[in-house]
């Protein structure tokens, strides 16, 4: 179990990543929503926001540009929701910290 301070620190880091992803999604895809309208688990492909393959490429470009991480175009597991994208970004950061 984590302490309150540990949880607050994790939330601060994750909230910032989520904010950037949401703002980029709305801007790039011209979505008619505010950032707070996008639940982090909403499905990006198919159901939910219903993004198509071209939209998915835009999302990948946005993530790579904003966070400097690579996302393989065929790795749809990462693109299933805003939360799964954030998980990937945070995992890549952890990997870099361990490597450096």
């Amino acid at each position, binding site marked *: *179990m984590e302490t309150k301070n540990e949880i607050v620190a994790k939330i601060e880091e994750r909230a910032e990543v989520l904010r950037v992803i949401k703002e980029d999604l709305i801007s790039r895809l011209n979505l008619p929503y505010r950032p707070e309208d996008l*639940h982090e688990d909403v499905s990006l492909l*198919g159901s939910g926001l219903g993004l198509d393959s071209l939209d998915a490429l835009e999302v990948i470009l946005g993530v790579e540009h904003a966070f400097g991480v690579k996302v393989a175009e065929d790795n749809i597991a990462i693109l299933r*929701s805003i939360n799964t994208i954030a998980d990937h970004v*945070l995992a890549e950061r952890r990997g870099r910290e361990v490597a450096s």
Partner: protein
Amino acid sequence: MRPTPLHDLLASRGAVFGERAGAEVVLQYGDPAQEYRAVREAVGLTDMSFLARFSVPEEGLDLLERYAAGAVSSIRFGRVLHTFAADEGGLVESDLYIANDDTRLLVLGESLVDDRIAAAVLDGQGASAAGLVDLAADTAVIGIDGYQAFAVARELFGADVLGLPYLSIETYSLLGEEIRLIRAGKTSEFGYALLVPAGRAADCWLEIERAGAAHGIRPVGAAAHSALRLDGRFFNIHAEGAAVRDPLPLGLQWMIDFEGEDFRGREAILARREAGLRQKIVGVVPADPAAGLEPGDPVLLEGETVAEVICAADSGTLGQRIGLALFDIAWAYSGLTFGARGGGAIRTISMPPFMPRSLTVRLDEQ
């Protein structure tokens, strides 16, 4: 209670019947865990005749714009909109598929209120003048869901069925009857809902069983579907929907046309949107995979309750309990570990928590 046209046939298959919003529903046929596995690994066959269903001619579009939260007027021919209907207070009442079916709009609704209440609401909004036709007595709805559902659909309707995009409707022939096929589903596997004549529903069911035999088809009830929806992260109006009702903490904003026509409950929803979210649902699992998780369980942070589990089920894929908890907004994030009653721990998780096998299939290569 509105009976299913398939009652006698399904009773012979061992169906355990229950009631949902005034309609008969099959809860299970035996072990829900086996039914769950059938959908994830093969094919499940589901009587979905508990759904409300009606049609409105295209001239009656205004009725549905006043009824549903989504952008009904923007549904293109042959496509389906997933949205909801709310009560006057802006609380979710029905989960809707609205299909643009040539000269009419076809509505399939899964509701917290029975058909008579929904009919009264629609009557109050001018259903008769709009030409609404209730299809419940004359039709049945049969669902084909699963990793191999596409193969069963191909055998029944030909290879062109594989080209249907998600959330679309098409007309096919089954046993000489004109039927409607909606490609949809709430399991995260391939899904098709067939609207068939009530008088031929049993024959259609048997024909689908025949076509699916080589693919391991088996009947599936509502209990297994609850688990499939939960770990596939599809909205379940009878689980988190019934517990929360407010579409904003539920994360259903994507179903709402905020800039569009006035709809029932719109003002209340917009007012809550402006006030800001105070709670949100988040996926949770017990940190110990063998531990339990039940609705009503508190999620604790240094002894204080920060969330409550609102629905839970066995995830056959994860091999443990999974649930949704309604969190105070400050703590509504995945990737955290909180306390559980009795000294255990509950983890918040990103949803959906796994890749369904259906997403690994390329239908254009089948």
